[in-house]
């Protein structure tokens, strides 16, 4: 009798478990699209995980509290790595956020796969002053003549230098290197201080630094029609030789170090010279590092060459058209002089709105004005090319690693050039 009861109980439990399992698999979580009939909730993904994320949260909070368009922005901040891993699958699964902020280098692969909407009509919205945006900043979001992204931030690579280490090495703490030769000479002196002090750090994934160096030395990554590699050149070899001599031969900095590890060394005050974007400022300030920031070193004194990069707002094709107005409302709010100034000053970013650049507080800020100086002459690097992201990850970064580890620079260059051709052919 007892045994029969437990058998029946077991049968019922097993059946229930199976039913629950099946129903759980079929359960579709309903993403919030609106919290009330009047308020439109829009979801927003980005990768501002550092102190910049706190400033961004503040602006989003202000917008949610003050906007009269009845829009609520629900933001999800993740690392850029996570962002780039989650977004493609989310788009395919129709679970993508309503809008995103994304790095320009990554945009073209999304656009070429038809997963991003054209949003050129944003500039025609009431209250948007198209002429307040610099032409280069607007151009960053254009692919094949169509606007897919609206600027959120523009950036470049700048030279950071640790003034205390300059002083210790007998260098003038107020004179940063202006040329690549000066940078190498200063770095070598600093590296001799010992005690784990690094003269210069070149991360193994430092493609952004390498692209600037290549461009500055007159080397090209792709042919003019962007269908073949143009890396195999004397200018590329010169750049590779320069890096190899500094890191592998002279040992002024560590080999096989990632960008994140290099950032940590700089933040710990043990790097003399480092090249990075504006996001390093907040950490350096927080750690009380006595540092300076200047425009990118050049091959020849007086040259003005640099790459313009940035982050832009975009809308995945999965987003319902009914939300476009709400998204534009937030992008418009972001691109007001007040918020542009706040983002530039607090996050130490160069402005891209003319009204922000003309502001007296911006002009008075030595870091922001230095960065703005570079942004004015910086140019985009193969804008809209869908292969750049792939070439960077699978060819350029591994090549940097090889060069820094002592592989013959000619061999590394030729092999990279061949690999780029492979990527361009779709292999």
């Amino acid at each position, binding site marked *: 009798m007892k045994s*029969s009861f437990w*058998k*029946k109980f*077991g*049968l019922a439990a*097993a*059946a229930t*478990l*199976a039913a629950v*399992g*099946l129903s759980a*698999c079929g359960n579709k979580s309903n993403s919030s699209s609106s919290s009330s009939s009047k308020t439109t909730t829009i979801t927003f993904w980005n990768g501002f995980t550092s102190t910049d994320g706190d400033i961004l949260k503040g602006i989003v909070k202000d917008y949610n509290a003050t906007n009269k368009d009845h829009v609520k922005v629900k933001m999800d901040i993740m690392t850029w790595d996570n962002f*780039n*891993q989650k977004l*493609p*699958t989310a*788009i*395919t699964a129709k679970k993508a956020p309503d809008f995103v902020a994304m790095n320009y280098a*990554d945009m073209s*692969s999304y656009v070429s*796969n*038809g*997963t991003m909407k054209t949003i050129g009509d944003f500039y025609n919205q009431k209250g948007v002053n198209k002429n307040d945006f610099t032409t280069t900043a607007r151009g960053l979001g254009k692919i094949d003549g169509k606007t897919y992204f609206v600027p959120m931030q523009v950036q470049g690579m700048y030279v950071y230098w640790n003034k205390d280490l300059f002083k210790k090495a007998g260098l003038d703490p107020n004179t940063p290197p202006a040329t690549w030769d000066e940078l190498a000479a200063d770095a070598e002196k600093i590296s001799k201080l010992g005690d*784990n002090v690094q003269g210069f750090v070149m991360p*193994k994934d430092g493609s952004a630094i390498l692209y600037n160096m290549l461009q500055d030395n007159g080397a090209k990554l792709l042919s003019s029609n962007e269908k073949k590699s143009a890396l195999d050149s004397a200018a590329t070899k010169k750049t590779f030789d320069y890096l190899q001599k500094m890191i592998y031969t002279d040992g002024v900095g*560590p*080999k*096989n*170090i*990632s960008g994140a*590890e290099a950032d*940590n*060394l700089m933040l*710990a005050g*043990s790097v003399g010279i480092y090249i990075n974007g504006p996001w390093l400022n907040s950490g350096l300030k927080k750690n009380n590092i006595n540092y300076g920031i200047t425009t990118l070193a050049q091959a020849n004194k007086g040259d003005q060459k640099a790459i313009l990069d940035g982050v832009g707002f975009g809308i995945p094709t999965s987003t319902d058209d009914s939300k476009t107005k709400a998204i534009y409302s937030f992008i418009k709010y972001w691109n007001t002089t007040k918020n542009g100034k706040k983002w530039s000053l607090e996050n130490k970013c160069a402005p891209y709105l003319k009204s922000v650049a003309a502001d007296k507080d911006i002009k008075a800020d030595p870091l922001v004005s230095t960065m703005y100086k570079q942004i004015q002459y910086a140019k985009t690097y193969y804008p809209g090319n869908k*292969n750049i*992201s*792939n070439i960077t*990850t*699978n060819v350029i970064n*591994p090549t940097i*690693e*090889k060069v820094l*580890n002592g592989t013959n620079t000619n061999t590394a260059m030729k092999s990279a050039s061949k690999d780029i051709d492979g*990527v361009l052919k779709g*292999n």
Partner: protein
Amino acid sequence: METLDTSTSKKRSFFQFWNQPKHAAYLFMAPSIIVLLLFMVIPLLGTLGLSFFNINIFFTNTKFVGWDNFVRFFSDQRAINSMWHTLYFTLLETPTQVILGTVAAAALSQGSLFNRFTRSVFYVPVICSLTSIGIIFSMLLDPNIGWIPYFLHQFGMSTPQFFRDAHLAMPSIAFMTVWKNFGVTMTIMLTAIQAISPSLYESAEMDGATKRQQFFHITIPQIIPSLGFCVMTNLIGSMQVFDQIYVTTAGGPEFKTESAVQYIYSRGFSAPYELGYASSVATILFIIIAVLAVSSNMYMSHKEKQMK
């Protein structure tokens, strides 16, 4: 009235049918079968299907390419290297873990307080996440901020680069994995050793067998089934190594620690998002693992028969 009788009798026959052990067994297995189908069989068949397509993660520009993706694998040096790296990791990790686990189990099989405490200590890393352990080891072995390189340097050694050195990176990852997981092997072996009849050891001792002889001639033959199980599960796990590499070296330096799963992941889930090609590499890895698992299982069964 008649209808009610029919309904009751139908209900009764339904319960009677499922109450029979041979039918009830299916109901008990149903939850597991459903989970296996949903999360193993269907994805496996899906992966196999995708292998024959040129398809990206956005499911756009899809084209049937037949065996092209498999042919491409054999000319893709990075993919082939990733297989060799996986095999290298497996050869470092699996024997070390099984040997260490078995020796530790034999040494700690007696139930003294010290042994029980040591067993618990050895098991602690098992309950920690591999990602957390990877981050901790990255810090411990970092040549700039790590304690271990610092102490080695204090003893006059040149600062080892561990995860940044092409020759040391994979052994360092294997060591970390063994340290984390050998508690599992030890526990399985311990159960097997404790199940051996003490009379076997008593007889051997009376015959003058040394402890070493007892270990090789009594303990090992008696635990062959458990040993086989550990070898096979470790082998499969090692061939799928991913987390620890992703966290510590991300496949570097110069792809020297890039495992097959890491390569599949980078092909499928980062630019150029080649889901079709990544699936074909995954299928090849699946076949390799299946062949290795079946052969090791056959070998162990053969050994087991020989011992009987």
